[in-house]
């Protein structure tokens, strides 16, 4: 088929007539699945996938449908839509929708989301991803070898110029449990993926070892060097340090209902120090990162401030797209009334 023909086919509105109901089906499936399997799995299956398999049949995931819609919309705007005054409102609205899709694409590809958990006076210059786990080997305190857990499979042999040994992976589990005999076994995934504890068992030079997330790292001494093998959530380094000075949880009088959460932090960026206040509904934005007050945790008698951190280049798109779509729809309402048939 010639490219022009394909493009023409892509501009046909029948695509929307079938794509939209399919998106609705995905939404319903994904929402109900959330109830039973949690958000992470539901997203993984339906919303962040190109294909999902149903009894051996491949069906389009959300990403495929959105991609199709994006291409179709672009083709339609360029090739088919009449750029004339009566249709100006519709055109602007469609443009807004396209912007939204593009922004979504940008966010999906580049956004980094995670959190920082700080105790008073604690400072940190990185934040950890919610989901991505990694295997990290460090030598004398410095990371020398890092692999994302998603890239690893059972049976892989890991070797590198920086490593004096070979690591033969045996088993991997997204969520592991420890048996009374101190063995690592796979467990059912938690509904909240953040609560899962990833683990691996592996073999180095004939000895079997295991590493578990949130457990003390495995120490191996070779010669004069200390090697630590740990499983952890992927950390993104910030270009600056955040220190928690104070946190407060303001409840409504005589109740446990929180009225407000806030943290007072100090940002240290090279020679620059400055204080900022982060509140629920009032985040801190600095150098492309945004810090939100997610919650305040209580562990024993210690209170911890949980700050959600996001770096999203596509952040402005939904705002712009929303504005454009709104303008488009209002314009269309006004214009179509003017040209309405009696």
């Amino acid at each position, binding site marked *: 088929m010639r490219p022009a023909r394909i493009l023409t086919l892509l501009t046909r509105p029948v695509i929307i007539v079938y794509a939209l109901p399919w998106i609705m089906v995905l939404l319903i499936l994904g929402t109900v699945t959330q109830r039973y399997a949690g958000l992470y799995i539901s997203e993984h299956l339906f919303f962040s996938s190109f294909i999902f398999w149903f009894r051996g049949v491949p069906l389009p995931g959300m990403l495929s449908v959105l991609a199709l819609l994006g291409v179709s919309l672009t083709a339609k705007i360029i090739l088919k839509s009449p750029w004339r005054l009566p249709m100006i409102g519709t055109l602007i609205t469609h443009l807004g929708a396209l912007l939204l899709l593009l922004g979504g694409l940008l966010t999906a590809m580049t956004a980094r989301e995670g959190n920082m958990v700080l105790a008073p006076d604690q400072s940190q210059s990185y934040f950890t991803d919610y989901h991505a786990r990694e295997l990290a080997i460090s030598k004398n305190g410095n990371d020398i070898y890092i692999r994302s857990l998603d890239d690893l499979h059972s049976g892989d042999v890991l070797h590198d110029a920086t490593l004096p040994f070979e690591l033969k992976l045996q088993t991997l589990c997204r969520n592991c449990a420890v048996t009374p005999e101190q063995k690592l076994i796979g467990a059912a995934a938690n509904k909240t993926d953040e609560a899962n504890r990833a683990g691996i068992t592996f073999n180095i030079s004939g000895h079997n070892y295991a590493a578990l997330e949130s457990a003390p790292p495995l120490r191996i001494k070779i010669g004069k060097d200390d090697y630590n093998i740990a499983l952890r959530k992927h950390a993104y380094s910030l270009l600056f340090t955040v220190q928690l000075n104070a946190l407060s949880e303001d409840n409504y009088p005589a109740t446990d209902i929180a009225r407000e959460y806030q943290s007072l932090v100090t940002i240290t960026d090279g020679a620059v120090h400055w204080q900022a206040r982060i509140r629920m509904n009032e985040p801190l934005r600095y150098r492309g990162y945004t810090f939100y007050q997610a919650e305040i945790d209580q562990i024993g008698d210690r209170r911890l401030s949980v700050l959600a951190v996001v770096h999203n280049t596509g952040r402005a798109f939904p705002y712009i797209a929303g504005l454009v779509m709104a303008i488009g729809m*209002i314009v269309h309402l006004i214009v179509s009334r003017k040209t309405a048939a009696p």
Partner: protein
Amino acid sequence: MRYKILLLVLIFVACVGAALFDYTHRYSDAKDPDEVTLAGQTVPNFTFKNSEDGKVYHITDFKNKTVLVNFWASWCPPCRRESHKLTAIAKKHPHDLVLVMLSEDDTEGKALDFARSLPITANVYIAWDGRIHTAQNIFQTYRYPETIIIQPGGKIQRKIIGEISDQDVAEIHAALH
């Protein structure tokens, strides 16, 4: 119809404007984590008879100094524990601070018996409140110990409920410098 749409848009803009106005004026009631709470009222005038010299004093006699009014009883262990901390504070600030210790014992004898064991300086006044009941009738204090901090000028700053802590002591010292 056009006008109606325009009207709608205007109303929407007005709402957003009002909301933005409110947004910039929000959180006036949320407090900073370290704000000091104040009762802010002038201390009501009351009298007491100092056990040392038998003279009757008014609280307003000490208007220009920081006054600690402490309610205690000899049968109350935290009261007994903190009495030395209080007299030590008084000793450290002989000219700026006055300590008035009102006893809620049921007899004057019991109050004086305990008072005799305390190392008091000239700015410490110990009185038996078992007859006049200043604690209950003027301060609504029924549990002991309680210490009320009154700033120079007579305004009540705050009340320490229960035994005075080391942090309270540090704060009182800090305020007097």
